C-alpha cells in the first residue's frame, strides 16, 4: 500500500500556502510530516483527505489517482473536539456510521476500541465529564473504529500522561504491524524518531528535506566526534574542540572523516576517556536546521 502526493500546490487568496509538495508514505511504516506552525502541514493533510482540492498536482494511491470512495482515512486532528454534551458511545457510533459502517458493526467496533483503551465504563457518559487525556483517547476511537487504511495522527501524544502515551504507542505499533499507512505530524521529535522510518520537513510550503530517517542521519558529514571525559577542558584545548551541551562532553571537528581512527587512538592513549562516538544529529537538530 502506498500513497503519494505529487507537486501539490494550493493558494488561499493571494497567499500561496503549498508550493509543490511531494511526498510518499507506505503501508506497514510510519511517516513523519514535520514543519513549524503555518508551514503547510494541515493544508497538505486536508488536501490528502479531500477536504478541499489542490490547485494543481495529483494524489496517487497504489500508483493510480486516488478514489476516495474506496480509500478510508482515520484522522486525529490537532484541534481536538467532539460533541461535549453528547453521550460518548452515541457520538462514536455516529462518526463510524459517517465513515460508511453499518450501525451494528459500528457499535461493535466502538465497544471493542473503548475496551482496548480502558474506556468502556464511560460509554454512556457525556464527553465533557471526562479529563482532557481521556477525551483524547475517545477522539482516537473516531480515527480508528472504522478500520481505515490510512491513519493520520496530528500531535497524537500532546496532553497524554506517560501511561496513556505508552498505551497509544502500543496501539500505533499494532496498526503499523497490520500494514496500515500511519502518518504522524508532531513537534515532539522524540516520538517521531521512535516511530517514523521516513520523514518530510515542510518549510514555507515546500518540502525541504525528505527520505529515510536513518539515511538522512548517515548522510550528515561524519567528521565530528563526541568525547565524554573528566578532562574535557584539556581535550578541547588540545584538539580545538568545543564544549557541548551535555556535561563532560566535548565535540571535536576533524579535518577529514578518515582521521577518525588516528584521533580516537590519541584520545584513548592520552586521556581518561569514558566514551567516544561519531556525532549523528538528532531529529531535533535536523528539524531546527531545515525548518528554521
Amino acid at each position: 500500500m502506498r500513497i503519494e502526493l505529487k507537486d501539490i500546490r494550493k493558494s488561499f487568496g493571494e497567499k500561496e500556502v503549498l508550493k509543490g509538495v511531494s511526498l510518499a508514505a507506505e503501508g506497514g511504516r510510519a511517516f513523519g510530516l514535520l514543519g513549524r506552525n503555518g508551514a503547510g502541514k494541515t493544508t497538505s493533510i486536508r488536501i490528502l483527505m479531500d477536504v478541499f482540492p489542490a490547485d494543481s498536482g495529483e494524489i496517487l494511491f497504489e500508483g493510480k489517482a486516488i478514489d476516495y470512495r474506496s480509500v478510508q482515512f482515520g484522522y486525529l486532528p490537532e484541534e481536538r473536539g467532539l460533541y461535549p454534551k453528547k453521550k460518548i458511545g452515541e457520538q462514536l457510533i455516529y462518526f463510524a456510521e459517517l465513515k460508511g459502517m453499518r450501525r451494528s458493526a459500528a457499535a461493535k467496533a466502538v465497544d471493542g476500541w473503548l475496551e482496548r483503551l480502558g474506556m468502556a465504563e464511560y460509554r454512556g457518559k457525556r464527553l465533557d465529564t471526562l479529563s482532557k487525556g481521556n477525551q483524547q483517547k475517545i477522539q482516537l476511537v473516531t480515527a480508528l473504529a472504522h478500520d481505515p487504511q490510512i491513519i493520520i495522527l496530528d500531535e497524537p501524544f500532546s496532553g497524554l500522561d506517560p501511561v496513556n502515551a505508552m498505551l497509544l504507542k502500543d496501539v500505533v505499533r499494532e496498526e503499523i504491524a497490520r500494514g496500515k499507512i500511519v502518518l504522524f505530524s508532531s513537534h515532539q521529535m522524540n516520538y517521531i524518531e521512535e516511530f517514523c522510518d521516513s520523514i518530510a520537513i515542510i518549510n514555507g510550503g515546500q518540502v525541504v528535506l525528505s527520505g529515510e530517517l536513518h539515511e538522512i542521519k548517515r548522510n550528515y558529514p561524519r567528521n565530528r566526534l563526541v568525547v565524554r571525559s573528566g578532562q574535557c577542558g584539556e581535550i578541547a584545548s588540545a584538539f580545538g574542540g568545543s564544549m557541548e551541551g551535555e556535561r563532560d562532553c566535548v565535540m571535536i571537528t576533524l579535518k577529514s572523516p578518515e582521521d577518525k581512527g588516528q584521533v580516537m587512538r590519541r584520545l584513548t592513549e592520552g586521556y581518561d576517556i569514558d566514551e567516544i562516538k561519531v556525532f549523528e544529529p538528532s531529529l531535533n537538530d535536523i528539524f531546527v536546521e531545515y525548518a528554521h
Partner: protein
Amino acid sequence: MKQFKVIFKFELRNYLTNKIFLGVTIFLVALIGVVMFFPRAAEALGGGEDGETEGSPEAGGRPVMLLSVPSGEAGSLMGEAFAAAFGRYNVRVLEDSLEEMEAQILDGTAECALVVESLNAYDYYVNNLSMYDRNTETADEVLKQLGQMQAMVDGGLSWEEAEGILSSRVSHEVFSLGKDQIENFFYTYIMIFALYMVILLYGQMVASNVATEKSSRAMEVLITSARPVSMMFGKVLASCLAGFTQLVAVFGSAVLFFNLNKEYWGGTAAVASVFDMPPELLGYMLVFFVLGFLIYAFLYGAIGSTASKLEDINTSVMPITMLFIVAFMVVMYSLADGNVDNILMKICSFVPFTSPMAMFTRIAMSSVPFHEVLISVAILVVSVFGVGVLAARIYKVGVLLYGTTPKLGSILKAIRKE
C-alpha cells in the same frame, strides 16, 4: 445518500430528545389545553352563581347609569327609550343634585350619567372615559330617533305609525364569490404567525448548531468524514421535520381539545373559524411552510458556519432575520389593511424569501389564479435547491475559517475558486 440518512437521523434524534424542545412542546400543548378547556371549566365553576342571579337581574350587579330627563310626557318617553337602549345598565332616574350625581360616579355607586336637556342636547358624565366607551353614540341614536318620531307625530302620524316606520328592518344576505376575509382572517393570521415563529426559532437553532460544532472543533472530524452537502441537507431537513412535528403536536392538540369542548365554544365564531380551515388551504400551508422553512434554514446554516464563536451568531444572522421580519411586516400590514392583493404583495408573492408568507396570505384571503400559485411554488422550489447547494458550499468554506468572521465577498471568492 447513506451519509445524509445517518446525519438526518442523528440530528432528528438530537431535537426529539432535547429537553428544551420537549419542554416547550409540552408547555404549549398544556397552554392550549388550558385555553380550550377554559369555557367548560368556567361554566362548571360558575354555574351555581348564575342560577341565583337569574331571577333578579338587578341583583346580578349590572352597573348603574343615572339619567336626568326633562319633565313631562317627552321626558317619560326618553326614560323608556334609554332604559331599552342601555340594556346592560341599570338605568335609574336621577333625583339628586348634579353634585350628588358626580359624587356617586366618583365613589363608584354609578358608572355614568346622562343629563338630557332636550332632544338636541345632553351631557355625559363618566369617571374614566374608556377607549371603547360607545354610550354617547347610543344616546345620540336614541335621541335622534325620538326627534324623528316627534317630527312625524307633529306631521300628523300616530306614535305607533312613527315607531313602525323607524323600526322597519331590511334583511340582506351576502354571497362572497371569492374568499370571506372575515372568516379567513383568524386562521391566516395564526398560520403566518406560526410560520414566523417556527422559522425564526429553528433558523437560529440550525445556525447555533453549526456554530457549536465549529467552536467545539467537532467540525475537524465531521468535515473529513462527511460531504458538506449531506451535512447541510441532513441538518436542515431534520430541523424542518422537528419543527413540523412540534407544529403538528401543538395544532393537533388544539384541534383535539377544541372538538372535545366544541359545545362550549359554539358561540365564538372567530375560534370556530380557525378550526374550520379548508383542507386545500392546509395543503398550501404545508407546501409553503416546508419550502419557506428550508430556504431560511439553509441561509441560517450557512451563516452559522462562518461564525467562529457562538456569541457571534446573533450579529451574523441579523441580515437574514431583518429580511424575514420585513417580509412578515409587509404581509401583516396588508392583512390588517384588508388589501392583500396590493402591488407589493403581488411582487412579494413571487420573490422566494417573501413568497411563503405573501403567497399563502393571498391564497387564504383572496382569489389567486392557480397558474400564479404554480409559478410562485416553482420559483420557490428551484430557489430552495439553489440556496441549499450555495449554503453547502459556503458551509464547506466557512467551517474551516477561524478567527474573525469572514466577509461575504471573501467567502464568495473562495467558493468561485473551488
